[in-house]
């Protein structure tokens, strides 16, 4: 087969996908802010996204904080500035690792679940049934999921930040011989509000992307159980890539001098 035809076709397919996602995003955002609102469904999503993600986020943050402290201790040891460990740990966690790792974990859990649920509703004609009952699926299914995830992720990340810093603290005081009160003082003294806030802004954007990808792939799935499986995989992969790409862009926007 002609190589130009193959390249051309996949490029056109790529453009079509971008277009579809753009239209879907526009509709999703519009229906998130235009009444009627389904508060009951919003609350249900907040619980299922937020509350049930707490263990996952807490555990990953704890281990990440501990490992980070150990590695930074080794690295700073090479140039003799081990006293910088608490500052670098809290800086790294609030700005980067907290939002990114928590969001990737939530992406695995939540966008997969959303794609599977909405995808099953699509292939079993439940979305068609919603429409015939004069209910807009964007308002009923998609808006509550997107809003809930974007609202809840900053809270999860904040909790993850605290637990991550604690992980670093335990590692440093129990195994690396840091003095407890000096470690805490260094953590707090050099922390700026902007470090935390920028991480939370990132979290809100990542939450939006997670739910958007879960809903998009679920909503457009076809081809029965196999199609739903494909939608689930695509949702997690695309959400994860978008999180990392958006992280780069937001960091450049906020911190490039």
């Amino acid at each position: 087969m002609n190589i130009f035809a193959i390249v051309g076709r996949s490029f056109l397919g790529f453009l079509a996908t971008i277009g579809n996602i753009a239209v879907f995003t526009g509709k999703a955002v519009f229906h998130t802010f235009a009444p009627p609102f389904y508060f009951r469904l919003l609350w249900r999503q907040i619980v299922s996204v937020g509350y049930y993600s707490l263990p996952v986020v807490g555990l990953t943050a704890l281990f990440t904080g501990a490992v980070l402290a150990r590695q930074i201790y080794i690295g700073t040891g090479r140039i003799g500035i081990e006293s910088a460990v608490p500052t670098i740990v809290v800086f790294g966690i609030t700005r980067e690792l907290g939002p990114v790792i928590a969001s990737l974990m939530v992406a695995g859990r939540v966008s997969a679940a959303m794609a599977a649920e909405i995808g099953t509703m699509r292939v079993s004609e439940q979305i068609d049934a919603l429409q015939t009952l004069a209910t807009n699926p964007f308002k009923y299914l998609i808006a509550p999921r997107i809003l809930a995830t974007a609202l809840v992720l900053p809270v999860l990340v904040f909790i993850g930040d605290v637990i991550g810093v604690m992980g670093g603290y335990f590692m440093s005081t129990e195994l690396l011989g840091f003095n407890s009160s000096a470690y805490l003082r260094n953590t707090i003294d050099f922390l700026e509000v902007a470090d935390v806030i920028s991480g939370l802004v990132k979290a809100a954007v990542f939450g939006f992307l997670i739910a958007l990808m879960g809903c998009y792939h679920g909503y457009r799935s076809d081809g029965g159980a196999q199609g739903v499986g494909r939608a689930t995989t695509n949702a997690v992969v695309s959400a994860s890539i978008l999180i990392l790409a958006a992280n780069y862009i937001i960091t450049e926007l906020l911190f490039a001098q």
Partner: protein
Amino acid sequence: MSTIIPKISLRGVTKSFGDNLVLDKLDLDIMPGDSVVVIGGSGTGKSVMLKCILGLLDADAGSIKIDGVETMGMSTRDREALLRRVGMLFQGSALFDSLPVWENVTFGLLSAGTISRKDAWGIAATILAKVGLGRQVCDLRPSELSGGMQKRVGLARAIATSPEMIFFDEPTTGLDPITADTINELIVERVRDLGATTLTITHDMASVRKIADHVSMLHDGKIIWSGPVDQIDQSGNEYLEQFIHGRADGPINADPNTDKIT
């Protein structure tokens, strides 16, 4: 007589999926208060036709009028208002599996704000009684029901808002003959009592004879025969005859692909 506007009127409705031409310039009229049954072999596009009328699928060409108003390319808002007057039973029931039965049945009433959540359970029980289900199913999930019970809940959901147009996609498939007859009775009753206009798709000839005022047969993307139900036995149409008597040999080929080659 020509002054009566059809409740639903299809003209030249065409729909294809890729190379697969499913509806080919299809024409169909349904008069107010009529019970029309569409028959036809599997995969001839009966469900696709229903979905085009409801706006769940966009037809490629043609015109679909309801009460004389064009519905193709209608705004979302107008479509929503139109769908409030419609009930639909899906072929696979399509119950919301995240909601209990009572919420499924009263979904349309709740979303229109006609009733409060407080009263919904009792109202659901009343509607379920009409399709022969006891109040104990109210709190079950759709996944806990048998296929036939799901169909009845789907039917209850379709009639709950007392809509003026009701679409039934194979209402009796998968039911025992007694329940099937109850469902047929119920459809007749809806038409008689509420003056609803109904469009039913079925393969079940007992059902056709019981509920139809008019019968239309879909084949090769077109309506190839239409007429009052009492004429189906002397139509002289060999397609219709073959279908009614369920014979394997005749002009209709069971395999749609070989059908297209000939």
